[in-house]
C-alpha cells in the first residue's frame, strides 16, 4: 500500500492497518523536515509528485520488498504540498514475524522511495532564496544526479 497525502501524515492512523496476529514486530521510519540542508537554513518545503507514475513505482518497490524479505506487510505514505520544519514528509511501515527482515525491508523501501519515486522537493531558505533539491546543481554543472 502506498499513498500520497496533501494533508498531515500525523493525522492518519497508519499503524492500525498492520494489526495481524502473525506479526511479532513492526518497524517504522518517519522522515521529518529538518531546519537545514547542505549548510543552508531551511524555512519550509514544498513537495510535488507525478501521481500516476508515483503510485505505480511505489507499488513495485513495496512488492519487491515483500518478495525479497520475509515480512508480512510493507506500506509507505508520502506528503505533497507545503511542509513546515518538523512535519512528517514520509512514512514507511513493515510488519514481520521477526525483527531482522522488518528492519531490512524498511530500509529497502525508504532507500528506493528516495531515488525512484517521481517526487520533487523545493526548499525555501531563511535568506529568501529557494531551490529545487538535486536540480539546480545539475543545471549548473551539467552532470547527472547520483542520489
Amino acid at each position, binding site marked *: 500500500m502506498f499513498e500520497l497525502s496533501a494533508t498531515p501524515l500525523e493525522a492518519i492512523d497508519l499503524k492500525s492497518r498492520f494489526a495481524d496476529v502473525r506479526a511479532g514486530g513492526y518497524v517504522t521510519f518517519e522522515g521529518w523536515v529538518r531546519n537545514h540542508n547542505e549548510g543552508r537554513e531551511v524555512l519550509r518545503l514544498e513537495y510535488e509528485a*507525478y501521481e500516476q507514475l508515483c503510485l505505480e513505482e511505489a507499488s513495485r518497490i513495496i512488492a519487491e520488498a515483500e518478495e525479497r524479505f520475509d515480512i508480512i506487510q510493507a506500506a509507505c505514505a508520502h506528503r505533497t504540498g507545503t511542509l513546515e520544519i518538523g512535519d512528517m514528509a514520509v512514512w514507511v511501515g513493515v510488519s514481520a514475524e521477526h525483527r531482522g527482515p522488518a528492519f531490512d525491508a524498511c530500509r529497502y523501501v525508504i532507500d528506493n522511495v528516495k531515488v525512484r519515486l517521481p*517526487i520533487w522537493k523545493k526548499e525555501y531558505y531563511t535568506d529568501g532564496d529557494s531551490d529545487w*533539491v538535486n*536540480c539546480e546543481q*545539475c*543545471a549548473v554543472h551539467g552532470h547527472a544526479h547520483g542520489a
Partner: protein
Amino acid sequence: MQKKTFNIHYFAILREQRGCSVETLESAAVTAADLYAELQAAHGFELGTESLKVAINDAFCDWGTPLQTGDAIVFIPPVAGG
C-alpha cells in the same frame, strides 16, 4: 515530415521554466529525445537529457522510444522524495 500531436506535462523545475503544467503541441519529433531537444531549444531548459528521465503514458521509457500521436509525455527532473 508528418507532424504528430503530443500532450506534455511539466513538473517542478521544468514546470517553472516552461511557465505551465501541461501543453499540447504538434511536432515532427520521432523520439522522446528529439522532442526534448526541440523544447529545450524553444524554452531554454537548463537540464540536459543526462539529468532527466522520460515517461510516456505513465511508464518510464528510453529516450529512443518512438513517439505516437496522442502520447502523454513527462520529462522527469532529478527526484528528491523522502
